[in-house]
């Protein structure tokens, strides 16, 4: 990853901007039922161990590129993104097949409630983080 950041620095004009945006694994995602007004939290969806490790490696690569004065940190933030599902079965299928999350949610409602609302629309609410980094001049 550090190699990639060095290469990105090469192709960026001095003062150019690198945008690093990715899911924020430091924050849990949530499985929620869509209600006529708002959402009801049904479960917590954690990030898989492998992806947590990958995210930490990415963080270290960025930190090293900043330390090596390839980039200066300019601005960072986080926003929430909703992934929609037509029903609970579709959400479960997504979790089974998706690499980023653990394959089962930790439900915070009982089985009877899940069954009662299984045909309702659901979302996974997940955090997305981003950071803008400015390319330092090559000789700085």
């Amino acid at each position, binding site marked *: 990853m550090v*190699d*990639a950041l060095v290469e990105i620095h090469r192709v*960026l004009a001095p003062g150019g901007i690198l*945008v690093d945006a990715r899911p924020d694994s430091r924050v849990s995602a949530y499985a929620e039922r869509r209600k006529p007004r708002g959402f009801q939290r049904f479960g917590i969806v954690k990030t898989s161990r492998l992806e947590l490790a990958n995210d930490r490696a990415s963080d270290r690569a960025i930190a090293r590129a900043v330390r090596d004065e390839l980039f200066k940190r300019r601005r960072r933030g986080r926003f929430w993104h909703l992934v929609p599902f037509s029903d609970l079965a579709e959400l479960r299928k997504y979790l089974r097949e998706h690499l980023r999350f653990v394959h089962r949610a930790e439900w915070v409602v009982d089985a009877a409630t899940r069954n009662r609302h299984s045909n309702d629309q659901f979302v996974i609410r997940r955090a997305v983080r*981003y950071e803008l980094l400015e390319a330092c001049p090559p000789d700085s």
Partner: protein
Amino acid sequence: MSSVTKDCVGDFGKHVPAYASTLRPRPHDELREWGGSRLVRGKRVLDLGCGDGRLALGVARLATRVEGIDPDPEAVASAKTNSRRAGVRNARFAVGAAQHLPYPDGAFDVVILSWTL
């Protein structure tokens, strides 16, 4: 693609989790969060890990020129098809790896790693 490039692409691909493009935020939503259209307006933009071109094509109407690069040949083929369908003329897509970018020094004003690193 040369064997060297294939090896690099293959290795890089191992570290990149697959994300369904349709399940990600819309390009203008992401752009708004990053600070708005001024970030890419009139700029030369590289979308690294462009996938099917979702984000690259989203910013192409604002940017001077957009290049998308991705290790997955099928994704790049999709990006080219999507670009043709959308009638976008200032975006180009290629197969490649982040460690060996086929561009000269200082070729871009903005590089986007959206769900890539």
